[in-house]
């Protein structure tokens, strides 16, 4: 027998279940308990950057929209800098932007929305420039381990074409599953997305 390595093993995932709102968004469960709550609004009036709405749905293998799903997003600020010490890039921090939010899908429409800013391009630790993107984590009843995916922006064609992660996706047609479509609504940019859990347009999910 070789010497034991003595690493601990990661605690395994379990589904968030149908009542995930109780713990993470209690107002959606139907009650008010905490003085301070987390939300789908990532911006304050002082946050720098272009205000955008992210708006999408998560769809199961029968084509049905999930109405009990919870998404979290994590993104860089308008200068392309994450609010975390492990980001050593040169972009300026924005003290009015944590870069994280969570949202439950609407119980009727299944719509998930975030009010945020468009992130800047990111320089990764290998010095490569990465297209602006938002990192997404998805949990729900029936999802045994949180799903990781990303959203890129339809108006960043050149940056997307050079992005080192998008370029890993094969076949290339699947890269489109990660791109949110820009439109304008009442003068504000809205990026629409669909996350397909299965089927011919299955979204690319990452083992990060």
């Amino acid at each position, binding site marked *: 027998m070789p010497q034991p390595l003595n690493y601990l093993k990661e605690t395994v995932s379990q589904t968030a279940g149908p009542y995930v709102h109780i713990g993470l968004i209690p107002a959606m469960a139907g009650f008010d308990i905490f003085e301070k709550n987390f939300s789908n609004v990532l911006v304050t009036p002082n946050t720098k950057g272009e205000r955008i709405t992210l708006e999408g749905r998560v769809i199961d293998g029968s084509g049905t929209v999930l109405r009990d799903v919870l998404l979290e997003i994590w993104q860089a600020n308008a200068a392309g800098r994450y609010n975390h010490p492990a980001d050593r890039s040169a972009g300026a921090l924005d003290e009015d932007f944590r870069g994280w939010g969570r949202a439950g899908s609407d119980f009727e429409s299944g719509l998930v929305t975030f009010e945020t800013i468009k992130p800047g391009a990111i320089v990764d*630790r290998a010095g490569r420039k990465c297209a602006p993107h938002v990192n997404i984590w998805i949990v729900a009843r029936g999802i045994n381990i949180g799903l990781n995916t990303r959203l890129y922006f339809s108006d960043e064609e050149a940056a997307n074409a050079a992005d080192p992660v998008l370029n890993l996706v094969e076949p290339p047609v699947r890269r489109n599953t990660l791109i949110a479509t820009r439109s304008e609504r009442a003068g504000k940019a809205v990026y629409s997305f669909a996350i397909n859990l299965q089927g011919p347009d299955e979204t690319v999910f990452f083992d990060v």
Partner: protein
Amino acid sequence: MNAQAPALRDPRLNAPEPFTPRDGGFFQRDRAIHPPAYAPGYKSSVLRSPRQPLLSLESSVSEITGPAFGHNDLGPLDNDLIRNYAKDGDPVGERIIVHGRVLDETGRGVPNTLVEFWQANAGGRYRHRKDTYLAPIDPNFGGCGRALTDDTGYYYFRTVKPGPYPWRNFVNSWRPAHIHFSVFGSGFAQRLITQMYFEGDPLIPVCPILTTIPDKGALDRLVAPLDLNASTPFDSLAYRFDIVLRGQRSTYFENRPEGN
């Protein structure tokens, strides 16, 4: 030689390791111990499980980083489920303390990380607009709370022991008593939701959700033992639940995969 003199000891055995943040990539997740996305015994997973292989990414700055939280995000009663929704008295049920450490795979405590928890009441009923189980709502119990780990990764909270409840999977499926946990860690790739179960619960081996876990040791590590030493006499029993997040390298490897 003085037999009474203490032997020379490595002083590091007594001193806690100072926590220096690491910012390399995370250890590869061992997906063989996690429940698979598609687990037909848990029927809800069938239509909600991706069928294409996941695309494996080396940790980039987008995964090594993650949100930070502080005491400003929390309220003073957030870790006391006996008090944080009490209207005209304490909630019904067995009073318990749940405590433990959030560690990483190298055994280091994960400091200042947000832990959130939610559960059914003592009768197995959730305070949720979609829960219609016949057991009554407890007017004094909300069923959720949160805590920040201290600088050694330790957390604790007080609650009542949740009850088991039936659910629609097979005609007679029951969830063992459990508390849901959400944990962050320092990087978004450590994000984890899991459930804590209670030592001795006879529903554990027959639960269709627990039996999705392919590794017996991994399942056992979701079961919190009774911890009499941490109980409060004439007040509350205690259960101990340690949570392990993915480990992290101290050095970032600036690999450039072929073609990039």
